[in-house]
């Protein structure tokens, strides 16, 4: 008995070590909480500023909690920004839906059909998601002018659809490539054609990928500034351009800018809060780590 107890590594550590380890592990919460505070500071400032009454707003007391909850700032910011929020929704939803559907079809074909040259086509498509858009901006504007889509939302939708294709295609291709061949072959045995196989077999099981791609496209089109500022005229501005313009003007008070920033962030924040898991997968796909 005594000899075995010396050779076997003890499973439970002595009480004092356990306590020390427990205490040192709890110490890890100190940096974690400090960092969480750092990340939440901007949200705190946006929220408390938005919730203060006009009479209570002052840069001197910007860190203090509001004495009473009021919505004057949010109402004022909403009045200012409502048409642009609406523009953003009108632009982002079709952009996300169309590029997801196209990405799914592309991904299906590229994953299930190894044609000659596919190994060249695929990296060429992928490179499209990394290019700095400054390198295509002048032709893009000229092109949109020539087809009469310059200044309006349809041109911006088209732009987001096309430059969204690389990532949507990539995500779906990786997903469809992971699906066993047998599933597809069984469906062909039953006499289903290419589209039948896609529609009845692959589409129903790729709903999670659709969620990933849809929210990714929703977020990136909503947050885009460069395409929007170059391609749209003032009445068609999406929220990012309007907000930036508001912040640049001397007329609109900082508290309304803060409330406006919060309003501009709410749609994508809600998506993140409720569908964060899918958001993270989109993020990893963007780094080719999907």
């Amino acid at each position: 008995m005594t000899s075995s107890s010396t050779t076997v590594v003890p499973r439970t550590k002595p009480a004092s070590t356990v306590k020390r380890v427990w205490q040192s592990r709890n110490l890890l919460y100190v940096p974690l909480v400090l960092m969480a505070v750092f990340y939440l500071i901007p949200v705190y400032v946006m929220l408390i500023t938005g919730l203060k009454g006009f009479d209570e707003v002052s840069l001197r007391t910007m860190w203090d909690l509001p004495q009473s909850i009021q919505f004057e700032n949010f109402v004022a910011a909403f009045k200012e920004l409502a048409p642009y929020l609406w523009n953003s929704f009108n632009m982002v939803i079709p952009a996300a839906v169309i590029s997801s559907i196209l990405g799914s079809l592309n991904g299906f074909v590229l994953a299930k059909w190894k044609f000659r040259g596919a190994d060249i086509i695929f990296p060429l498509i992928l490179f499209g998601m990394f290019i700095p858009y400054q390198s295509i901006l002048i032709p893009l504007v000229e092109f949109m002018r020539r087809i009469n889509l310059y200044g309006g939302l349809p041109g911006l939708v088209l732009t987001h659809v096309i430059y969204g294709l690389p990532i949507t295609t990539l995500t779906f291709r990786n997903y469809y490539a992971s699906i066993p061949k047998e599933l597809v072959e069984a469906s062909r045995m039953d006499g289903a054609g290419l589209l039948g196989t896609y529609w009845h077999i692959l589409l129903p099981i790729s709903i999670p990928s659709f969620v990933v791609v849809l929210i990714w496209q929703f977020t990136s089109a909503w947050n885009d500034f460069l395409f929007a500022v170059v391609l749209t005229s003032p009445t068609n501005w999406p929220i990012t351009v309007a907000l930036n313009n508001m912040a640049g003007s001397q007329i609109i008070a900082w508290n309304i800018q803060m409330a406006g920033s919060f309003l501009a962030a709410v749609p994508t924040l809600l998506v993140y809060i409720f569908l964060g898991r899918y958001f993270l997968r989109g993020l990893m796909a963007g780094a080719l780590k999907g």
Partner: protein
Amino acid sequence: MLKNKDTILSIALVSPSILAILIFVYGFIAWSGRVSLSQWKGLLPNYDWAGLRNYVELFSDPRFHIDIRNTVIFTVIFVLGSLILGLGLAILLDQGLRGEGFFRSVFLFPMAISYIVTGVVWRWLMNPAMGSRMSGLNLLFSNLGLDFLVNQWHTTPKWGIAAIALAAIWQMSGFTMALYLGGLRAISYELREAARVDGATEFQIYRRIVFPLLAPVTLSAMIILGHMSLKVFDLIIAVAGKQLPLDVPSIYMWQTTFDGLFYARGASIGILLLLSVAVLIVPYLYYTLRTEAEV
């Protein structure tokens, strides 16, 4: 393997997208390249040949020198800051503490917000006003007795761009955290446990086992962040507008093209940006896809 009808259908399904990318990415790059070799300055297109003159002028342009300097400072601070912070957070979150999911969500949420929102808020947080008009983080530091931290942020002479990098780190470090966390989770628990049994200290385990295994993650993160910092645009515009001390190539391109109508120079800057991004991304794509094919 595929029936003939299906082959035609497949081509019909993908060709619009492939064609669109060929035109909008590669066709437009070629078109930009052509503009960059032209004399186009003014509202009407002018494709008269200028050779490499636009590029030569750019490299002797003091404004472009400021841009390069700012891009280098921004890249170094942003990439290093995001890597260090991301790695630190990932290691903390990897300890199996309670509330891990909550903290992870908090560290990642800035990724969901636009650079414009981040910029507008940080513009007020980094308000450089002093004395009785002090506000934002300076006011907070002063109230907490940390007066030595009070500074001029993005209006600091010469180094203002570093303050912008700080806001960018706030936005992107969650991303590196997620990459590192994925890397840490991929290192087998047994490996670390075996080292522990052999008497290695935690520090040694990280130094000798964990960090070397995370090197590929670091490389990926550096490439992704590096190419982002070459493209940085919205964040600077939202914090400070178009100011020469905070100028970067993407802002110069935008301004000289659409405000100054100097299309040829704008296109040259665009092409140079593309080349610098390609130097990072092309090898990355090559190796990532090759390893994928081998698996």
